[in-house]
């Protein structure tokens, strides 16, 4: 799995480090981790609904925060679990721009293993780094 959960996240929260060869893959891994915190059986998710996500920020870590917030927003506003199927991160006009496609379906307790209800992406330890192996992001979610 291209992410690992943090053992030393704040006690009431859940943190993870997501990684990827490219920034796109790193963001994808972070989206998978966020979904897995909410849904225990990601493979059961059927692509019945599709949403496009477009966010931008001056800093890459806040672009990641805004991107992950979209998944949390749809979970509450439309009761949708969404799995990101395509993500592209570009630097344009001094902005980090994220364009993504996410697919999924309404929350169904009969088929979905419900896990934590994520409240927010926090700024705590939030960071995106270029490493020798590619990219790495640290995220702490408030549960």
């Amino acid at each position, binding site marked *: 799995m291209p992410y690992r*959960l*943090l*053992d*030393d*996240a*704040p*006690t*009431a*929260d*859940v943190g993870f480090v997501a990684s990827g060869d490219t920034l796109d893959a790193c963001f994808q891994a972070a989206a998978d981790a966020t979904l897995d915190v*909410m*849904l*225990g059986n990601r493979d059961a998710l059927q692509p019945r609904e599709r949403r496009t996500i477009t966010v931008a920020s*001056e800093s890459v870590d*806040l672009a990641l*925060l*805004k991107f992950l*917030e979209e998944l*949390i*927003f749809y*979970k*509450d*506003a439309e*009761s*949708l*679990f969404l799995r990101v199927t395509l993500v592209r991160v570009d630097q344009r006009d001094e902005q980090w721009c994220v364009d993504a496609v996410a697919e999924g379906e*309404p*929350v169904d*307790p009969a088929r979905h*293993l*419900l*896990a*934590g*209800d994520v*409240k*927010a*992406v*926090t*700024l*705590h330890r*939030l960071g995106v780094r270029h490493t020798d192996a590619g990219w790495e992001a640290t995220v*702490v979610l*408030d*549960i």
Partner: protein
Amino acid sequence: MPSARGEQGAVAGAGSREYAARMAEPRPDRSGLRRLAVQVGPALWEIPPTAKPGMRVPARIFATPALFQQMDDGVFDQVTNVAMLPGIVTAAFCMPDGHWGYGFPIGGLAAMDPDTGVISPGGIGFDINCGMRLVRTNLTYADIRDRVHDLIDALYKRVPAGVGARGFLKLSDREFHAVARHGARWCVDHGYGWPEDLECTEERGAIAAADPDHVSPRAMERGRQQVGTLGSGNHYLEIQVVHPENVYDRDAAAAMGLTIPEQVVIMFHCGSRGFGHQIASDYIQSFLPLMESKFHIRLPDRDLACAPFTSKEGQAYFAAMQCAINMSFANRQMILHRVREVFSDVLGRSARDLGLEMVYDVCHNTAKLEEHEVGGRRRRLLVHRKGATRAFAPGMPDIPAAYRAIGQPVIIGGSMETGSYLLRGVATGRDAFFTTAHGSGRTMSRHAAKRQFHGKQLEKDLALRGIYVRTVSYAGLAEEAGAAYKDIDAVVAATAQAGLSQPVVRFVPVGNVKG
């Protein structure tokens, strides 16, 4: 006074030798701040403002030596960061159930001068007005012993819980705006409660200066369908019993309507759901780019993002945050309405006949303008409480008339295994702006708890001990195992020793709906 370990509270994990050994083990002191703390009272420690550059006031931690040693290293770092906030008065505080959060520790308290100080969403939390509601009945445990499963099963069906849950109210934008303005009063006006419920709710169920014009459409969209939902994480709805040996203050208990041996009560814990979470996220992000460039505030942690209280931005957040306070009061009011329906349906008697009356509803994630005495003079202060409960002393205004002689009721929820408490505010709480703890406080991370405990096994263990649990998430159940929390008896005893609050009654769970 509560015993060191409640006999009904002993559980797999929570009562085990391993648990006791882990609890006794001091946490590491990586920052070096813990060793700078000086014990200045039986349950009070102080870190001087010289401990870290930028601290304006000392940091004060309410804890017995044992609880102090168990606190996460992050608590000391965070409470000393809070001491750097502009306008902070007296000290940055942490309650005995304090644990590592983001920005403020959970259990954090900071009072700001509203003219010179800041308002910080990190000092309130994402779950604005997360709180507790306690409802009494005139039933005894013997009356419901054979119906606990029916009651919990019905509550599980009728009170939506878990990820993505929606409430039964289908509100238009206009109606949701009214909920944000009028809180629990909207519910009562629309037939979802009794007028006297409002008397027993902090702020009478509606804080006055809420203004939905300062709430984003995204927040509205996130919260509109969630009124009357429990949520997940540490949120729960419980049927509990008062054993006679767990009544510590008979007069106060009687004033709160708890007079019957083995009396049944209902307690629940939840907040403002996605609505409050989005308001907090929106404003944290809007404050961030302005911190240095406009407000000239430099802090060591972005989670402490804040704005001067008198600024346009600070006032906008205050108005929006109060909408979330009201939504949360409405949320708990709708859940109470459902609880009354369920008890009435299952037991075949009206809610009035069953005496399903509110004891009190308290907030533990807010910032409010209050008057307090500081250095011999009355001052208006903006009091941030994050995982901390207001605990006004006897005689103070803003306490319902029925409780004015005994002090404000305080509800401290424990883990689903170990019981909960009703306390009352006391005069000695003035040094902490009349504030006390809010729960037992986590001591183990969610990730670690999930590795150590198994939800289905926990459910069986609890059933053997007479606690019937329904959950939407076994993973979530494992995260909330009793052993993932501090000893609630020790936390409550520490609040009494510190002069923050006095215990009235301890409740033992017999049934639990876990989000």
